[in-house]
């Protein structure tokens, strides 16, 4: 392998974490977010994709006191501090749930299903939650 393939001692790969589950009904969303935070320690090219019920993870105004669960939604806004700035949301999934970009608690890039598919195709590693 040439020197071009290395940066600070290791190869940088494109990792996409795909979120397809709503936040509190199952543990997938929280566990996925934990893995994303861990990945930040490895200086990789990380992106997050939100589709299907995964878009509900980003809805503003989550308030979990009544169900005695941790509201982890503010963490999505903290990702920027870990240099994770590529958040992609599929437009069809948003619209099917009556949502728009204004309903989301963090800046994202909204894209069509086809654009999302193209984005997935160019990844080195795709991990779905």
């Amino acid at each position: 392998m040439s020197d071009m393939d290395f940066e600070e001692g290791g190869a940088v790969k494109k990792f996409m974490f795909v979120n397809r589950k709503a936040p509190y009904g199952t543990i997938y969303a929280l566990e996925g977010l934990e893995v994303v935070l861990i990945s930040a320690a490895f200086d990789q090219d990380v992106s997050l994709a939100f589709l299907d019920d995964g878009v509900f993870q980003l809805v503003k105004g989550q308030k979990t006191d009544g169900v005695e669960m941790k509201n982890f939604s503010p963490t999505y806004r903290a990702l920027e501090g870990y240099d994770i700035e590529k958040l992609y949301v599929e437009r069809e999934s948003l619209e099917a749930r009556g949502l728009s970009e204004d309903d989301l608690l963090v800046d994202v890039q909204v894209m069509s299903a086809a654009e999302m598919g193209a984005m997935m195709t160019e990844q080195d590693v795709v991990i779905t939650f």
Partner: protein
Amino acid sequence: MLHIVNKSPFDANGLAGVLRVANKDGAALLLIEDGVYAAVKNGANEAALKASGIPVYVLQPDSDARGLQTRLMDGVSMVDYGGFVDLVAAHSNVQSWL
């Protein structure tokens, strides 16, 4: 990209996600575990699978376990565990639609 679906399409939306999002060029679909039910002959998903133009593979041990030996739609390719590995190796990346 190799897309792997392991849930029944009658119970989960993984297959629908593939059919909506997958970039068709170079794509393949592998049905495993309860995902094999997507390929039942005359089932609700047969037309959509055929129309997608994406090659469909079915993990035969999972299909056999569920009694689907003679009940799968035409046009799907059966693979064993070795074939599963070959499919993964033949594609640049993989997505499991959990």
